[in-house]
């Protein structure tokens, strides 16, 4: 077997992997180097998230009240089911990857092809799901009002159910249209794009509906967000409200502090980018397997190396899942 190995140009060269420090080949060692450094990058992000959360520990949103949607099930409260599904997809694609590595060790080309293909499909489903998560998060849910201090006020009915702005906001004829970069002074658009309802419209609707209450972000002694009485609600909304927030972006976030949205976009985005590049690398390796490159080389170690990367992406998700969605 060894005699038929196609040369890779690194034989006998110490730093080309000619001998194998720690009994691992050059490529595998380098992949481990990369993984350790990337793990430190991700822990930097997650630790920064923890820092900000501890800083605002009495008003940080609980993820299972934010991510409550499931595709095709509109209006159904399904906290975290979809993220759990995504987790399964990624763990399962890790399984097919490690099965591909195992088949590679046994030089079973067709099995490697099938398992690599399944891994790629799993990765693609995951990236697609993440795009859907982002879309849902950006579009938002019920809408909220932001105060002068940048805090979020959400609306509840007397039963404690969330109420969307569209259910009570009263339309006030308003001719103001959004100022875009393209009209008037160059490159000076508005700080925030205009929302469906303006703050006065929401306030008017709120005053007209006696059963509406305001919920602040601060936790009461039971650990649930504080719900104000009707009088307090009116006072709070009239005195401190300034802006309507629908959905989330980098500056405003109807679910809580803008930092929550920033970290969500940054951490899941960076992870999603890893998954995307993992899928791309897997596709390249997949075609190499199909055309028989590793069969001729006599070793499927390349599959093992991208496998390491792919498992690492799964590993990171396990932590993101815990620290973003569970804790």
């Amino acid at each position, binding site marked *: 077997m060894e005699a038929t190995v196609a040369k890779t140009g690194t034989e006998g060269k110490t730093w080309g992997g000619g001998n194998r420090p720690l009994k691992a080949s050059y490529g595998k060692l380098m992949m481990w180097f990369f993984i350790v450094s990337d*793990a430190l990058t991700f822990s930097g992000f997650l630790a920064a998230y*923890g820092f900000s959360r501890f*800083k605002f520990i009495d008003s940080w949103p609980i993820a299972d009240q934010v991510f409550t949607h499931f595709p095709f099930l509109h209006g159904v409260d399904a906290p*975290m089911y979809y993220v*759990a599904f995504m987790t399964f997809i990624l763990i399962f694609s890790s399984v097919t990857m490690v*099965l591909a590595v195992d088949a590679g060790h046994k030089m079973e080309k067709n099995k490697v092809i099938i398992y690599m293909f399944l891994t790629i499909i799993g990765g693609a489903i995951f990236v697609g799901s993440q795009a859907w998560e982002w879309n849902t998060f950006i579009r938002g849910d019920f809408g909220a009002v932001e105060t002068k*201090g940048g805090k979020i006020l959400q609306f509840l009915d007397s039963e404690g159910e969330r109420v969307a702005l569209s259910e009570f906001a009263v339309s006030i004829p308003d001719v103001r249209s959004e100022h875009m970069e393209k009209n008037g002074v160059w490159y000076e658009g508005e700080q925030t794009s205009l929302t469906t309802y303006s703050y006065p419209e929401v306030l008017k609707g709120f005053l007209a509906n006696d059963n509406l209450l305001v919920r602040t972000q601060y936790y009461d002694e039971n650990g649930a967000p504080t719900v104000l009485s009707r009088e307090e609600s009116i006072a709070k909304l009239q005195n401190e409200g300034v802006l309507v927030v629908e959905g989330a972006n980098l500056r405003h976030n109807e679910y809580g*502090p803008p930092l929550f949205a920033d970290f969500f976009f940054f951490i899941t985005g960076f992870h999603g980018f890893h998954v995307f590049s993992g899928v791309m690398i897997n596709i390249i390796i997949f075609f190499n397997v199909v055309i028989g490159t590793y069969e001729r080389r006599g070793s499927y170690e390349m599959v093992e190396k991208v496998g390491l990367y792919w498992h690492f992406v799964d590993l990171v998700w396990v932590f993101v899942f815990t620290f973003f969605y569970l804790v």
Partner: protein
Amino acid sequence: MAHEHKLAIFRGTLKFKSNVSKIWGVFAILSIVTVVEVALGIIRPEVLTGNTFLAMKLLNWVFIILTLFKAYYITWDFMHMRDEKSSLRRAVVWTAIFLISYLILILLIEGDYIYEVYKNNYIKFDF
């Protein structure tokens, strides 16, 4: 190249016949742990959310421990750490664990300190 795999997990109490069956076994373990995590996250039992240990809810400790448990099996069995030389294993694992623990410790203490300052002093800053 030799491809011998260590096929026993749980400190040797659970032995698999082949590498493939070990992979499926580990997948089953990871799935069960994930299901438990999600169930706990939805139910949020009173016992676990009401009590704290080291200023953190017991439920969060459970989540963190289960996460580390999953991370161990992904690294050891999917990434074949179990089959690597112990020197490679230690170089990768202890480096990361040491640096990450230090970073988390420092940042969380600092975050809690700033929270106290916001709460008990006159500074009202928000972003």
